[in-house]
């Protein structure tokens, strides 16, 4: 029954494709069996909506008259510093960037109310952003100062380019110490007061294609409410992480680097985010459509929350000290029930990733495909998978002797 992407696209063009979400396929495969479901279904859509720190946007603001060379100078967007190590008017603003005068954690825990992620949200929302720049001046770029409002609609380019998004799986964070801690996994109350997790579980893109058999470089995706593409494997992509029998990683494994035109994205799907005591980030919406090329690929999409495990890790001591020990494993079904058991204690759970928004993304992507405006893509090259020579390494520190 093997299908090709071109055959599926032809059905999409004719309005005959059968598209279901990664949530809907679970029940469908139970009712009809995997073989029948694989014959009937052409595409399974996925979605995830959570804070993704390794995100940012590059901009080309156009040349001023007289010209200014921002490369090697300093640029602030709404007081948040942008990276200027490129050519004259190209900039990059990262989601974690903070204004120079933000108190950070000097007043603990820092509030981190505004940073790079918020600038990106305001750009997407078509709000004016204040650019203040200083440069050293050259014969061909004589200007040394620039203060101006910019708006995304006037820029030559505004491109979301995120080096690491859409983690395949993630640790569950708890706190074994006797004081509250403030982490990128949220506020963690003392003595196992709560457990925070961050994954859409059964709806998450890479959990539905665990070996990256359909998702590869060049795959067209839902990104920030518009169209984007998988640019590369994300940083720290680690396909050789331990897996369960169904191929699903039991901890962080694959990741995606994604890219797309920010001008066609929407602020509902790119939200400036503040993690108390930790910093600023960007909450990103991503959805991937999985072509059902074979029964095997459909079987992967039937993964459900009870079949996905995540390790529970102490963030007061074990995580900061880069120690390997965990407090056991729990399933996303347990996490989503509102409580898990850790060291014999009942611990209430909370999510940082919005499952209801992930459902919405998978539904939007499904609608785009059903209406014929989103065709599937053949990857240009595959992502490294199990058996590749990738080993996730800690930093090899070598003291610098003067």
């Amino acid at each position, binding site marked *: 029954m093997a299908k090709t992407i071109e055959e599926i696209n032809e059905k999409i063009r004719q309005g005959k494709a059968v598209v279901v979400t990664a949530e809907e396929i679970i029940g469908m495969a139970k009712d009809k069996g995997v073989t029948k479901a694989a014959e009937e279904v052409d595409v399974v859509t996925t979605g995830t909506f959570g804070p993704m720190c390794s995100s940012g946007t590059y901009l080309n603001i156009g040349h001023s008259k007289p010209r200014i060379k921002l490369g090697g100078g300093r640029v602030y967007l709404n007081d948040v510093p942008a990276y200027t190590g490129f050519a004259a008017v190209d900039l990059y603003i990262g989601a974690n960037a903070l204004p120079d005068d933000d108190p950070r954690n000097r007043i603990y*825990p820092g*509030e981190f109310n505004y940073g790079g992620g918020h600038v990106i949200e305001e750009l997407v929302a078509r709000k004016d952003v204040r650019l203040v720049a200083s440069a050293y001046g050259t014969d061909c770029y004589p200007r040394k100062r620039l203060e101006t409002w910019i708006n995304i609609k006037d820029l030559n380019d505004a491109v979301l380019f995120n080096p690491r998004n859409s983690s395949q799986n993630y640790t569950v964070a708890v706190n074994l110490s006797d004081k509250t801690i403030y982490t990128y996994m949220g*506020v963690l109350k003392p003595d196992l007061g709560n457990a*925070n997790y961050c994954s859409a579980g059964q709806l998450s893109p890479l959990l539905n294609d665990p070996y990256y058999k359909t998702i590869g470089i060049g795959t067209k995706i839902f990104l920030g409410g518009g169209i984007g593409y998988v640019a590369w494997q994300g940083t720290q992509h680690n396909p050789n992480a331990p897996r369960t029998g169904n191929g699903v990683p039991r901890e962080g494994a694959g990741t995606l680097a994604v890219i797309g035109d920010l001008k066609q994205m929407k602020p509902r799907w790119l*939200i400036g985010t503040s993690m108390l005591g930790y910093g600023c980030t960007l909450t990103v919406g991503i959805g991937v459509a999985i072509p059902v090329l074979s029964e095997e690929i459909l079987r992967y999409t039937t993964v459900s929350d009870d079949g996905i495990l995540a390790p529970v890790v102490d963030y007061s001591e074990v995580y900061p000290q880069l120690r390997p020990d965990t407090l056991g494993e729990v399933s996303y079904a347990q996490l989503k029930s509102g409580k898990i058991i850790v060291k014999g204690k009942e611990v209430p759970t909370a999510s*940082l990733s919005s499952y209801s928004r992930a459902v919405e993304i998978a539904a939007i992507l499904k609608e785009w495909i059903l209406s014929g405006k989103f065709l599937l893509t053949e990857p240009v090259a595959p992502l490294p998978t199990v058996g590749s020579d990738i080993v996730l390494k800690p930093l090899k520190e070598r003291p610098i002797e003067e």
Partner: protein
Amino acid sequence: MAVSKRIVLHFPKRLVERPIVSRLVKEYNLDFNILKASVTPDEEGLMVLELSGKQADYDRGIRYLAETGVRIQSLSQDVTRNEERCTHCGACITICPTGAFELDFATRRVDFYGDKCLACGLCIKACPPRAMELHF
């Protein structure tokens, strides 16, 4: 008729050192339970009270507070959720000490029950998209 209401009292600087709440007990037959208080000499004071008694006494007590110069707010209006910004992630659920946020297991959306809220403010900064707002 008996009533029990949660209110927020704002004391201007000049009133901070005067006994005011105690008179609600002595002269107006009201019971109070302090849910939160921040009273420092020379600064505006804030107190969150649960006030109970007969409706007529309650109304007279509130009139007395207002006449003294204390600004009074109903607690339910104090913390609100900006529905535009809330992503229904759920980070607030385990932060709230009174369980004012509940996950709807069918929709996976987070419901906010304002009547359970004590206006402690813990959720305000713990909310990643900053959807919870404190109004004074």
